[in-house]
């Protein structure tokens, strides 16, 4: 009886410790975000580092994002084309593909790819720097790791995510067009005309607007997990996984919230 009571107490204690650890994590994350915004306000702005990170994190992610976007558009056109052909609804394919790509699939897949490639890369790189004491060395040499490491990566991903999304939207629609013309017998001019009339400026703004927030979160989560790395190389793997998993969850849950909000406000 006593042993059972002790076990229950221990479980309760473990739960309490986990809740405290979670709060500490959230508080540390908020502190990092705050320190990054303070670094912007304090200046000087690390412009050249931002350009360098934009190249590494955004431009180098472009091929993966573009392949994903083109394939998504093509697969959607195929699926909807063959499915709706039976009901004589083949001509709705351009409208469905373009709206889905611009409002949801383009932004979400672009950001998921960024979380997988760039977010993981940031966490692994900063994790490696942390365990090899390079982050401490930065501080010891009079640099601010937030300005040198976090700010450029967050800025690059915040600006890069919407830009990649816009290009991914175009390629997704083109992917759908290629399949529609080659497999469904829809002419490219009709496809483009239908797609153009289906998409409004609000769709583009809603679709790409949310990726600003997603890109920022991918950057912060990558940096946060990387800078918290401990326990050597095993810790780098853990941090990288955390960055990708948390980034993906934020994107998926965030997309639900943004979609709900956009319908609520009639965007």
């Amino acid at each position, binding site marked *: 009886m006593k042993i059972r009571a002790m076990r229950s107490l221990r479980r309760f204690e473990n739960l309490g410790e986990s809740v405290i650890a979670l709060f500490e994590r959230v508080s540390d994350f908020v502190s990092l975000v705050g320190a990054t915004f303070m670094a912007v306000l304090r200046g000087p702005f690390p412009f050249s580092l931002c350009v360098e990170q934009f190249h590494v994190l955004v431009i180098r992610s472009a091929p993966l994002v573009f392949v994903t976007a083109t394939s998504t558009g093509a697969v959607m056109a195929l699926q909807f084309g063959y499915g709706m052909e039976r009901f004589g609804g083949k001509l709705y394919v351009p409208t469905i593909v373009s709206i889905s790509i611009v409002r949801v699939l383009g932004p979400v897949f672009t950001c998921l790819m960024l979380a997988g490639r760039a977010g993981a890369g940031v966490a692994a790189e900063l994790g490696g720097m942390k365990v090899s004491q390079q982050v401490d060395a930065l501080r010891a040499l*009079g640099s601010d790791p937030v300005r040198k490491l976090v700010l450029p990566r967050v800025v690059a991903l915040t600006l890069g995510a919407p830009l990649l999304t816009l290009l991914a939207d175009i390629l997704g629609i083109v992917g759908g067009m290629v399949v529609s013309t080659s497999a469904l017998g829809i002419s490219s001019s009709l496809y483009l005309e239908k797609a153009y009339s289906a998409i409004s400026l609000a769709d583009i703004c809603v679709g790409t607007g949310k990726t600003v927030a997603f890109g920022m979160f991918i950057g912060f989560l990558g940096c946060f997990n990387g800078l918290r790395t401990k326990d050597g190389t095993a810790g780098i793997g853990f941090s990288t996984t955390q960055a990708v998993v948390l980034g993906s969850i934020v994107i998926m849950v965030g997309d639900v919230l943004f979609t709900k909000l956009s319908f609520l406000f009639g965007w």
Partner: protein
Amino acid sequence: MGVRDVVLSVKGLDTRFGKKVVHNKLSLDVIEGEVLVLLGGSGSGKSVFLRSLIGLESPQAGECMFEGKELFGLDELALVEVRRRIAYVFQGGALFDSLTVAENLAYPLREQGNTDDSEIRARIEDALSRVGLPGTEALFPASLSGGMIKRVGLARSLMLDPAVVLYDEPTAGLDPTNSRRISEIIRTLAEAGKTSILVTHDIDCALRAADRIAFLHDGRVAEIEPIEVIKSAPPPLIRDYLEGESKS
């Protein structure tokens, strides 16, 4: 060693990580121009002590006076000035992987706003020749041996001409030749007036480089003696430690 000023004075240092007490009212004075070696078992808080001196760790209590300034509790901005005067040599060198040796050495100078390329180049050449590595400017850290990385790390820490150099296990993992070379560099720097605090498990290095040896035990300085006393009649804890280390 003649009568010299205390350059760095730590009093009542308390450091805890969760329930683990690392330092318990630790007090220690460091004399200008000396090489003070800190010995102690693993986990006795030697490296944490060094890290606390430049604000890489935040102790729970205590004070540390350096050049008339209290160091503990300074914010990151104020610590920049302190870190210009107190350099830290990391155990693994901590060179930036993506930069060449020359870029690593130039980094602290550029961070301090020095943009004169010819002056920077001259200082890099000087620093590399001081650690016996001339001509390695263009190499990346990945192509250097462990001993070379440590020496480049040491050269980088000297770029801002600090008053105090903190060495965290500078000879760990090195062969005897490289270890001796590093000890000689530390000695040469001390003779040039640099105050040094050296954390090491390498007894040969400690005996070769030290002016005084302090032994950390139970979170405080249990014994501290000049090197002459250590060599002739070491106090009990240091004697046991030296015997244990040489046996192992």
